[in-house]
């Protein structure tokens, strides 16, 4: 048995002249929680559709659980649980009817694998007689995950399960994923929220169909090449313009209540401090800060351009 659960080998896919995925390669280890991190248009959904055997790649090959997604597509379908980005359950069936339907399609029963979905399903069970179309966003998401899990898949493919979901529900959802990972299920999950990246074992940063980097979140952050400073002043709004106009600042991006700034070669934090003081900024504060995955993403995508 290969130690890799998902192998993507130079996969490319275009829609007419639009390149959705360009020559992308990555490996996901058995039992790994692997995140595909990138904005809309990065090619995440196309990649998931190819892995879920719903779409043929133009070139390259991919395997899931050692099975080829093109040649062995029927067998692949038996071992994956796929949660597409768009709500894909039957809105006219009730919560329990949906779950039963998905179990039956895969030749199993809800009872047989109840333990796998128990934690999640218990939260929506009070609404089991409600049509799925009438559930709130968070509950739909939990039902969709239950339906993707009910046949005990080897690999879970979750395409943007948390998009549009509030921060609290997102944290709960990730807690569920970590538990499933600990039960040995391989999880490939995509998200546009960079803060979720740190919860993965490994991540791939993608943009415009290309890979910007693959590593553990710590590895990605650890390779950030320069010192990063968090800068603030009493007038944050003007600070934005003043940082943009300062040649000593190589980059400046707003980050919550500070700006994350990298300095051009030869510029020291003290130079920035006196520059801002000369422009009349009060209460200037410059502190070195640890880069986040989002900092790395912006740096890497700038290099691409």
């Amino acid at each position: 048995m290969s130690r890799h659960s998902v192998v993507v080998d130079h996969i490319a896919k275009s829609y007419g002249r639009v390149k959705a995925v360009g020559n992308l390669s990555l490996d996901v280890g058995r039992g790994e929680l692997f995140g595909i991190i990138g904005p809309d248009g990065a090619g995440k959904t196309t990649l998931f559709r190819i892995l879920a055997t719903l779409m043929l790649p133009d070139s390259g090959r991919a395997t899931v659980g050692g099975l080829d997604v093109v040649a062995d597509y029927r067998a692949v379908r038996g071992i994956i649980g796929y949660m597409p980005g768009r709500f894909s359950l039957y809105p006219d069936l009730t919560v329990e009817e949906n779950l039963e339907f998905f179990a039956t399609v895969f030749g199993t029963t809800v009872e047989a694998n109840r333990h796998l979905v128990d934690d999640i399903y218990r939260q929506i069970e009070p609404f089991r007689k409600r049509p799925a179309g009438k559930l709130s966003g968070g509950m739909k998401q939990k039902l969709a995950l239950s339906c993707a899990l009910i046949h005990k898949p080897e690999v879970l493919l979750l395409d943007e399960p948390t998009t549009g979901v509030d921060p609290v529900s997102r944290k709960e959802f990730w807690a569920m994923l970590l538990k499933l990972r600990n039960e040995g299920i391989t999880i490939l999950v995509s998200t546009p929220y960079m803060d979720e990246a740190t919860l993965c074992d490994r991540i791939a940063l993608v943009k415009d169909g290309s890979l910007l980097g693959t590593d553990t979140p710590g590895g990605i952050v650890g390779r950030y090449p320069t010192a990063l400073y968090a800068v603030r002043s009493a007038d944050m709004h003007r600070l934005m313009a003043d940082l943009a106009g300062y040649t000593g600042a190589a980059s400046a991006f707003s980050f919550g209540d500070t700006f994350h700034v990298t300095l051009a070669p030869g510029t020291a934090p003290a130079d920035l401090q006196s520059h801002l003081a000369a422009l009349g900024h009060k209460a200037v504060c410059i502190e070195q800060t640890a880069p986040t995955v989002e900092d790395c993403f912006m740096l890497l995508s700038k290099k691409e351009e």
Partner: protein
Amino acid sequence: MTRMRETVIHTDRLTKRFGNFTAVDHISFDVGRGEIFGFLGANGAGKTTAMRMLCGLSRPTEGSGSVAGYDIATQPEMVKRNIGYMSQRFSLYEDLKVWENLRLFGGIYGLGARQTATKTDEMLCRLGLEGERDTLVKALPLGWKQKLAFSVAIFHKPRVVFLDEPTGGVDPAARRRFWELIYSAADSGITVFVTTHYMDEAEYCDRVSIMVDGRIEALDRPAALKRQFEAPTMDEVFRRLARKATRQSD
């Protein structure tokens, strides 16, 4: 933020009930001219219902409110004329060209043909999209679409623009450039009422309200909220409040 501002949005115990479910429960607040007001809450907290009332799309069950000087219950048509609206889900018509979208929205907001044409040129030039006049909107990169959608929402110079999760899924650099547009609209005197699930964006707002189970549980400047809840980030403030939620419905 201490200077007195003209009030552009005012609500007084604004309430909406559906049967015996109270979606919005006696919310009262004021938003000033040119202010960037963040309207936060978990899914199902009542944000969308409140926003629909403020946009003149849904009649309050109880309480009152005014937007841009018009009563949301008795003058909803005047409210609609004086606001702009943009959401990630709906903003522009994908199968129309850029200029066709602008003509359509200009017409809807009662701008004349000549005025629409002049403003179209001016706006495309400002956004650096002159070359895209005849491009179908669906062929534009997402970041451009977003900028265009925002500019369309303020095309008719509304007093208030409502932005419903305007930056979802946008790449990190484009998301920040989008906020620069928000700042410049606010500087020009347009009041910005914005919802978001990115808590770093909550920090960019002048003031933030957080809804829990239909009520406003906190409302202040981000720095003051962090002090009040002794939390290092708005994310933490949000989580502490939202955990108190007891209801489960959208």
